[in-house]
Each structure stands twice: as C-alpha cells, then as structure tokens.
C-alpha cells in the first residue's frame, strides 16, 4: 500500500491523543526537520500505523490500535508543539542521540513547557504525555508496561524498522 500522509490518520490520532493533531508541528528526533503532523509520511499496514519523517525517512511514530485504546511509540520525535512554524524548515537543531523519553533534559517531551501541547500540559482526559501519572502512558517515565515508549524495541513486530517490503 502506498503511503498516505498525516491527514489520513487524523481520526486515529484523536483516538491516541484525545484531540486534533494534524495541524500540530512535529520535530524529527533524528534530523530535526519540523513540519505539521499532516505532512508526515504514513504507512498503514497491519498491525499498526507507521509514521515517518518526510525529510530523513526515520520512524517518528508508531500507533497500534488495541480495542478501544491506541498504543503510541513516539521515540522518533523530538517534540510536538502547537507553536512555531508549521512547515518544514530542516534547519532545527537535531537531537543527535535521538530523543530519550526518560531524559528530563530532553526537548519538551518530558517536561511541562509553555510551548508544548498536550505533552506536559495537564489536559483533562487526554493521554497526559509528560505528566507522570500512574495509570497513563507516561511519556516522561519509562514504564515497563507501556509500549516501548522512549525505548527502541528491537523485538516488537518490526514496526520501528525500516520496511522495504510493501504489503
């Protein structure tokens, strides 16, 4: 299946984040390219949805629906923000190590921050990324049970791996 773009998974993103996300600006943790989520490259193949950077091709998000909920791996993203330039610049400073979700120093993912969106901003029932909080997906804290957030996961379904083999 040919890739589509982030516009086409707006509904899935609402399931995952609790709000409209396609107009939100994303920053790739690998190359630093910044663009609206709508402009990211999306591969829809079972069992999950793989989202890649349009500049460097690295995986920035993996979403897997599990019943009524969605597991999200954002380890390829440096940030999501509803501030700033909503278009590709390719000139942002890259986080060379790739973002480590457990690193409190890293760009806005683990820390409440004026600019970051639901990540780190208390937000009623949404996924409360960055707000360490017992039950939730806990982006700010590695959590054995949650799905490979912040921790590249070699074994799982090979969704984080570049996949040359279209289904």
């Amino acid at each position, binding site marked *: *299946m*040919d*890739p*589509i*773009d*982030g*516009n*086409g*998974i*707006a*509904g899935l993103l*609402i*399931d995952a984040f*609790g*709000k*409209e996300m*396609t*107009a939100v600006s994303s920053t790739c943790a690998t190359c630093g390219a910044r663009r*609206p*989520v*709508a*402009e990211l490259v999306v591969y*829809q193949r079972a069992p999950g949805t793989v989202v890649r950077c349009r500049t460097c091709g690295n995986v920035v998000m993996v979403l897997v629906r599990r019943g009524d909920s969605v597991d999200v791996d954002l380890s390829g993203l440096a940030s999501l923000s509803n501030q700033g*330039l*909503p*278009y*590709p610049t390719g000139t942002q400073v890259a986080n060379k190590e790739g973002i480590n979700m457990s690193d409190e120093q890293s760009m806005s993912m683990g820390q409440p921050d004026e600019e970051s969106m639901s990540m780190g901003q208390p937000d*009623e*029932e*949404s996924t409360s990324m960055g707000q360490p909080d017992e039950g939730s997906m806990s982006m700010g804290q590695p959590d054995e049970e949650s799905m490979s957030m912040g921790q590249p996961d070699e074994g799982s379904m090979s969704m984080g791996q570049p996949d040359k083999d279209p289904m």
Partner: protein
Amino acid sequence: MERTAVRGRLSWQVAAVVSVTWETASVATIQLDPPDWAGHRAGQHLDVRLTAEDGYVAERSYSIASAPGEPLAITVERLEDGEVSPYLVGELRAGDELELRGPIGGYFVWESSDGGPLMLLAGGSGVVPLRSMLRHRVNSRSDVPARLLYSARGWEDVIYRDELGQHHDGARVSYTLTRSQPPGWTGHTGRINSSLLAEVAWPAKTNPLAYICGPTSFVETAAAGLVELGYPPERVKTERFGATGGR
C-alpha cells in the same frame, strides 16, 4: 469550530445513505444522513468503517465533498484492489446504512475568513476537498478570488465536470489531461510541471493560499513547483493519498 463530543472520543455512528450518484465510470458521490453531525469545515474528512461478517474491520478516511452547511456527502473513487471503495462504489445503495465518524482534520481546511487568493491544485480524486472549498466560497459569498488547476487522466475522468464549468464569478478552473484528450481539446496536456504552474498559478506577490490534494507524486511536484515560484511553504497545504487508500 470545535467538535462538541466528549473530549478524546470521536464516536462512531450509523448514517443512512440518502443517495448514490455516479460522477464518472468509477467515482460516485454518496450523500449521507448521520444522526449526529456537528457540522464540518471545507477540506475535512470522515472515517468510514466496514465490518465483515467474520468480524474483520476495515477503516478508511474520505474527504467530505459537500460544503459546510450542505447535506453531508463524500465522493469516492472505486479502486479495484481496495478493501472499502468497491463496496462504497458499486454495492452501496440509497437506504443502506454506513458506519462513520467525523468531521476530522484541522490542517487541510479552508474557511472564507482565511482569505486568499486561493490556489487549488487537484490530482484525480484529490479534487474532492477542493470542491468543498469552492462551494463554500460561493455559499459564503466570499470575494476571495480562486483558481483551480485540475489534473485528470482524460476528460471522462473529470469529477464534477458540469459543476466546475459553472464557476465563473472570481473563480477560474483549468484542466490538464495527462493521458487522453478529446478531439479539439485546447486545454493543457501532460503532467503538471514548473512551466504549467508558472502559467496558471497566482503570482507569489499576490500572497496566495494554496491547497494541493492528490497522489503523492502529484502533490510533491505541485508543492515544490509553487515554492519555486516563491510561495511561502507555510501557505502551501498538502494532502496525499496512496493508490489503495481512501480519499
């Protein structure tokens, strides 16, 4: 216009199919009557969910074809190897029911207050959300001038052909036919490229707002071409669909 449903939930609902109208040999417009529709913005889409008897579920996203305030409709191209579109375009009939949710999407949307001039670029069925924008422009009595460049394989593949021919007042529609042209065709031919864009698109100095929708290769060429002409990237909004995806 924020959706008023419970935050974090976009509820599925069962809509009645009001009508199915063929636009071309492989494209149909499906008018729907969902019980709970918050109203949409031009360019948004909705998700359709089909559940097979064995429980297999397929979901696709389709652009909304109707303008805000009009009865809800989607226009779908039948893709022979698709999971969902052959059902929607071919089997679905007026009086059937269809599970859907929406409206969805906050990026590829245009409201008359966003201004323009509007530069719309459509590849194939990518014209669907742009048609919603053009209708919204007319319905809202917007004085924003608009141009649509529509790339289709042949004249018989042009969706909304009659309707697009009626946009006169401040809107101009041009076509490029990539594979076949009817006898006496005086419009453009071949795939879009820089020189066609330079000829058809608003000059960058008019500060246009561009929306491009179509297959990925079309969108990439069109977006790069507009930026080359001096359009600021943040005023070039794009939406891509794959060969077997929805929309």
